[in-house]
């Protein structure tokens, strides 16, 4: 398992799960009509809560549960403000990110007495199967399960209806608020779960930079994947592959000599993002979000 290709694959399988799960969280929320630009913040609280709970209880499973719970808790703020307050959802999402940024640093300091890396020697680990953590399997199964649920279950049907035309759903007695609450919380759970993968399965620590933009990448993956679960999966895999390939290439560049003098690191690091922009701008064409995405629902609005 040391050929460049194998290590590339390993790297993709390791780094894709948080991205996939968070992007999926975005899909679930936005398909119900609630824009969730706060994925970065949700992942951050998920990662911190997972690290803290795993450390405090000695159980990685407790960590995982705490990550999910933290995502749900923070997204409840978003749900409350944007569903009942009819607030602008983009602004509320930005607020989530800022709150997570400040709150986690504050708690890190309060709990661990540091603002760098949490001084935890070893975090308990999750069981692995064929050398991969449950996150990897989850990340590949969840998008298909979600796609199926959206298509073939009653809650899935209602969720799609609410995201496209909430007034139509409301006239048929479907509670728009209830469906959106459920979707936002589920989205928060998935993003929190994605965040928890960072300390529990990938980096085995928590540092204050987490998730270092992964949440924003997940947002891009959601758009790139055209707001579908499977699309989000492949978009996330593409991003993970891009990053892994850039990393592999970087480590392949000799540390000295002519090539090193060109400092291609930055170009390689930027390449996946540039490529995504090119693909979004060229290939994918116009992605059409759910029709009511981001539109607060006012039951008595004249339509």
């Amino acid at each position, binding site marked *: 398992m040391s050929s460049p290709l194998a290590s590339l694959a390993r790297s993709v399988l390791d780094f894709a799960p948080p991205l996939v799960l968070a992007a999926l969280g975005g899909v679930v929320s936005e398909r119900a009509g609630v824009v969730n630009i706060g994925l970065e913040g949700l992942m951050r609280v998920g990662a911190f809560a997972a690290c803290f709970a795993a450390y405090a209880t000695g159980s990685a499973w407790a960590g995982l549960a705490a990550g999910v719970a933290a995502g749900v808790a923070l997204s409840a703020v978003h749900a409350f403000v944007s569903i009942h*307050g009819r607030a602008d959802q*983009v602004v509320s999402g930005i607020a989530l990110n800022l709150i*997570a940024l*400040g709150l986690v640093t504050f708690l890190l300091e309060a709990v661990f007495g540091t603002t760098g890396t949490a001084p935890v020697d070893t975090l308990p680990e999750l069981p692995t199967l064929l050398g991969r953590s449950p996150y990897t399997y989850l990340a590949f199964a969840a998008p298909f399960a979600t796609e199926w649920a959206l298509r073939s279950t009653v809650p899935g049907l209602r969720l799609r209806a609410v995201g496209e035309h909430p007034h139509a759903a409301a006239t048929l007695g479907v509670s728009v608020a209830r469906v959106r609450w459920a979707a936002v919380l589920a989205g928060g759970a998935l993003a929190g779960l994605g965040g928890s993968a960072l300390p529990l399965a990938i980096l085995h620590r928590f540092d204050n930079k987490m998730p270092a*933009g992964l949440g924003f990448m997940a*947002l891009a993956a959601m758009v790139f994947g055209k707001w579908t679960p499977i699309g989000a999966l492949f978009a996330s895999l593409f991003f993970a592959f891009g990053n892994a390939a850039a990393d592999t290439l970087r480590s392949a560049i000799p540390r000295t000599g002519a090539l090193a003098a060109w*400092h291609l690191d930055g170009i390689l690091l930027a390449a996946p993002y540039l490529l995504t922009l090119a693909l*979004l*701008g060229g290939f994918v064409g116009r992605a059409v979000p759910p029709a009511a995405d*981001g539109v607060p629902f006012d039951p008595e609005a004249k339509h």
Partner: protein
Amino acid sequence: MPEGKAGFGERLRRALAAGTALPSALAVASALALGFVVIALTGKDAAGGYARMLDGALGGPEALGETGVKAAVLACTGLSVALAFVVGLFNIGAEGQFIAGALGAAVAGASVRLPGPLHVPFALGCAAAAGALPALAATWLKAKRGVHEVISTILLNWVVIYLVHDWLVVGPLRAPSSGANVSASGTAQIFASAELPRLLEGSRLDVGLPLAVAFALLAWLLLGRTALGYELRAVGANAEAARAAGVPVARRLYLAMALSGALAGVGGALLILGTERRYPGVFRTGYGFDGIAVALVGGAHPLGVLAAAFFFGAMRAGATRLQLVGIHPSFTELIQGLAVLFVAARPLFAALAGALGRPPAGKGAP
């Protein structure tokens, strides 16, 4: 603008437009109160912390100078985000544009020899151009290719950050290591002629602050008093109606985003030319992201942005003192986040106020 639905731009504007000064002040006050409770809950000295923060922000010329320096930068990035809001675009890329501008200023300040009165404007111009570049790219992607600007500006942030920090300042633009300067990265020291003149003895306050105030006033005049500004606002309010009325919508979008990027870039330049004096190896200040909060709390109104910039600038300046009571300075991020959340939840407050039988918050700045 070839966008399918009338987008959140218009909604955002409406949300922001609906009377501003009082609700924003209430939002900030609520955030401060909640922050106070959070500190108290962790068993720390909240009152002492706040008192020290106030002292660090306003106590004496040095503190005032720090507040002024930070407020100037925040005013620039806040105006940047606000100008994009005016035409209905959400520029999350202010951070990247800020970095691009900072680098532009550092290079212009270190590589060209010009007499004093010309060098600073030249460096600021280079910063503006460098900042405008990514913003224009995002606008092009939006106008021609239908890529949502929130996504493109997020991605462009990373492109700029990686290209600058992992390529340019460690590679082509790195200062030649000579003598005392042995750092592995960062650009060369700017010439003295490119430094921003200081204004206040015993503090780092420089002409950046009056410049930023002037920008805010100019933006206010532009938007409120000129036909061009009227057209920008019309585009943001209803691009379709503006087009029907003969306003060249695409050109106005490019103009607004160019100004937006330029302002963020100048924000970066103020920090480089005023205090850093060179582009350091890593320059992740978060001023660009904070511009979003400043613009939102400031109601996307130039003078509101200025007020919000002073508030958050004071918070940033005072925050270092929080460490004296064992609270990390990033606590201010929490306050910012809560303030933005309360701004977002304004309709909720209005509804609550209505339910209590009082009229909802009154009119604020025009």
